[in-house]
């Protein structure tokens, strides 16, 4: 730089002579030590004018200020790179030693993984199931020890090893950097498994003695709680698949249930709702209000909503498991209400009368009716503004709750769609022909997408009607009239289920216990090997104790609403035009769900009991005689008899 500077300022000697001298100076300069070189430059600078030094300065500055990451305070350099995605972070680490240093010492790979775990339920679930959550959200010291242990050291060795390291973050950097792509691979594999229908099947045979069938279930990492047709609730150990506990109390089939970390609420064809202690199995409360089978219930945040074959919906306030007060009764459906769901804004109900009705959660005020299904609606889920419903017309419909528009009709099931769930990615539905279908929600929501691309996979293992299912990113758990609960595991696919089935001489899905055990062991061995192979597949950490499905949490003791009517007072209440639902096809199937009800020609009046101004419902009349004539009433004789044997219902509610 001095050279060019001198060149431009050259005076006195000619260019040739200058160049010669310059070259020889530079050669001499190169032979000197750093210190000597600096000394020379200093001497030269001292001989120059202020103006010249200013010019020199402008040459030096860009040489120094070339790189933000290097020149910024490290905290800022880290936060620049913290906002990058994985690919850019990989590129950034390869820019220079300095950049790599910032990535390593900012723990940026670890932070990136932690960010995904915080924001994405798939990552969160995987971190627990694969055990690498233990490397996250911990101190630097702990991380070093855990990583060293994952690489084969004992705890003592790891602690000693930590003290020998001068740079723990450097040591951890590679671990997290390698962990990231392994997690990505794992996630891709799971997605592939869903797409290709690759799963490991586990089967629980409920071995019910008299009436067989599993109506409802909910699961978490430790247990599956199921409601059976034989009037019991059975709690299964998720690992051993053995029945841990049987809750006896209902005098009719257990049609619906939900649990949280404290209680189980169950509804039955004995017309009662019972509350149980989820830990001890003790029966805590019985809610007697509905006059016929309780077909579905949901509870959340101190609020319980039940619906019944008696066509009404009851909204309860749960102060505690012992103190549950009836708040409102919602009337308007003209046939059995098969399903309810709600959040803080809306209560959504669906009925054999082919309609979905939307009500306000806070005031219980009726809002609108969604028409579209051509036969009764069996199932529905509602969340984040979207309703997905399944019907006896064999279709699934997606609805926008705000405007009531039907966004999409999914066709593919060949019989009544009995159960349905969806999350951010998928819809999973189960039908009366035993088939479970997995649908791509994103494609379904895209109005331009061709309907043939929406169904990802059809799963055929049940030999009877699918009654209920729940799923998450890794598995589906389904229950059926065939008296089994199936666990479809897309995370640990292990031994291919189809091979197993062939070995079992064509018995559909009969995977025996021994094989399952073997699979389990193989799976554990596999995990152990993975652990040694790389950091991603560390030893399975015990999963956390979280209520399954993330559906609800009951918090008793919420502020009490006015109780408008006594609990025993509503049955057969005026205002409802009774529709004869007694005659229909007796299908000997035991399904309590009301499939389809002929609609009455009268002008239906729906009222929200307890309201001073009764809401006039605007229901479109279906004057379709043919359709009405086909209405089926699927009824279980046993259950009906049991109902009739019930003593007159008094308020048996404990306070």
């Amino acid at each position, binding site marked *: 730089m001095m050279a060019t500077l001198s060149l431009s300022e050259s005076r006195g000697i000619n260019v040739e002579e200058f160049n010669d001298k310059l070259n020889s100076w530079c050669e001499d300069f190169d032979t000197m030590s750093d210190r000597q070189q600096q000394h020379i430059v200093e001497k030269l600078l001292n001989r120059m004018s202020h103006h010249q030094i200013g010019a020199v300065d402008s040459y030096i500055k860009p040489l120094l200020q070339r*790189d933000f990451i290097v020149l910024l305070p490290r905290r800022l350099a880290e936060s620049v790179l913290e906002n990058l995605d994985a690919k850019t972070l*990989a*590129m950034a680490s390869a820019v220079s*030693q300095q950049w790599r240093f910032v990535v390593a010492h900012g723990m940026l790979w670890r932070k990136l993984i932690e960010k995904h775990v915080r924001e994405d339920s798939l990552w969160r679930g995987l971190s627990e199931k694969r055990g690498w959550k233990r490397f996250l959200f911990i101190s630097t010291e702990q991380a070093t020890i855990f990583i060293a242990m994952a690489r084969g050291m004992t705890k003592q060795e790891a602690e000693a090893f930590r003290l020998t390291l001068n740079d723990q973050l450097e040591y951890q950097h590679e671990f997290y950097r*390698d962990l990231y792509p392994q997690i990505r691979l794992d996630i891709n594999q799971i997605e592939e498994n869903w797409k290709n229908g690759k799963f490991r099947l586990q089967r629980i045979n409920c071995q019910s003695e008299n009436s067989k069938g599993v109506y409802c279930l909910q699961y978490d990492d430790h247990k599956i709680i199921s409601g059976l047709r034989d009037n019991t609730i059975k709690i299964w150990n998720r690992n051993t698949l053995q029945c841990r506990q049987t809750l006896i109390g209902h005098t009719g089939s257990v049609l619906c249930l939900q649990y949280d970390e404290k209680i189980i609420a169950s509804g039955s064809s004995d017309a009662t709702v019972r509350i149980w202690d989820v830990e001890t199995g003790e029966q805590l409360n019985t809610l007697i209000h509905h006059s016929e089978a309780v077909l579905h219930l949901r509870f959340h945040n101190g609020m319980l909503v039940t619906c019944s074959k008696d066509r009404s919906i009851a909204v309860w306030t749960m102060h505690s498991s012992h103190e549950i007060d009836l708040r409102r009764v919602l009337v308007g459906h003209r046939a059995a209400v098969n399903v309810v769901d709600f959040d803080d804004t809306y209560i959504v109900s669906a009925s054999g009368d082919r309609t979905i009705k939307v009500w306000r959660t806070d005031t219980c005020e009726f809002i609108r009716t969604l028409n579209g299904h051509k036969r009764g609606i069996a199932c529905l889920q509602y969340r984040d503004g979207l309703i997905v419903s399944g019907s006896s017309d064999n279709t699934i419909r997606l609805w926008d709750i705000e405007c009531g528009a039907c966004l999409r009709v999914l066709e593919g099931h060949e019989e009544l769609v009995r159960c349905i769930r969806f999350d951010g990615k998928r819809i999973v539905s189960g039908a009366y022909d035993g088939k479970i279908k997995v649908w791509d929600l994103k494609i379904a929501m895209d109005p331009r997408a061709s309907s043939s691309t929406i169904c990802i996979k059809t799963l055929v293992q049940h030999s009877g009607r699918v009654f209920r299912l729940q799923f998450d990113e890794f598995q589906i758990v389904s229950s059926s009239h065939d008296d089994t609960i199936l666990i479809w595991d897309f995370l640990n696919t292990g031994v291919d289920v189809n091979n197993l089935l062939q070995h079992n001489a064509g018995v559909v899905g009969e995977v025996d216990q021994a094989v399952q055990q073997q699979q389990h062991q193989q799976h554990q061995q596999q995990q152990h090997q993975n652990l040694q192979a790389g950091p991603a597949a560390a030893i399975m950490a015990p999963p956390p104790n979280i209520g399954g499905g993330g559906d609800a949490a009951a918090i008793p003791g919420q502020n009490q609403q006015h109780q408008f009517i006594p609990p025993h007072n509503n049955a057969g209440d005026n205002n409802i035009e009774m529709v004869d639902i007694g005659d229909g096809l007796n299908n000997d199937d035991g399904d309590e769900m009301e499939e389809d009800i002929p609609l009455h020609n009268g002008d239906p009046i729906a009222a929200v009991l307890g309201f001073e101004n009764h809401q006039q419902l605007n229901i479109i009349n279906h004057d379709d005689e043919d359709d009405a004539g086909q209405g089926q009433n699927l009824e279980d004789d046993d259950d009906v008899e049991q109902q009739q044997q019930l003593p007159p219902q008094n308020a048996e509610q404990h306070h």
Partner: protein
Amino acid sequence: MTATIELESVPFIQKFKLIASDNKTEFIIDEKILNQSAVLKEMMEIQDKSDTEITIPLNQISAECLGNVIKFCKHYEDSEPYLPPIGPTACLSRPSQSHWDMVFLKSLSSKQLFDIINAANFLNISRLIDAGCFRLGYMTENRTVEEIRRIFQESGDFSAVEEEQIRNEPLWN
């Protein structure tokens, strides 16, 4: 040459005169702008405010850079105070490229951007620090190593063997 830039002229408002590193250029600002700098805010809290105008020399910040800082703060003078999330799970949502902050910072040269981030850091103006980091992130994102090196005028200092090793890491495939 003395440039006095009057940004606020309503009476009865405490004024502050910031003087840039050239000892000449002055910026007159009010509290709404001053308070965005945690450093200046703290400094002024222990100052006697009876004067109509308090002079603050900022020897470390060039006139051009200080002008940019004030231009940024001026844009937010009527906004709610910026509260960056704190704690181990703190996570900022990244502004879009069309966000005013990003557009403003994009209009600066590399040198100006570097200066303004350093000045923001010196004065502790959280909003500007975060915005600067996001802007630098955008400059890096979806770039190859060679592009990043070019943009940041960084020459790779890995040995050939190290380069080779890096290219074989799983993330590259």
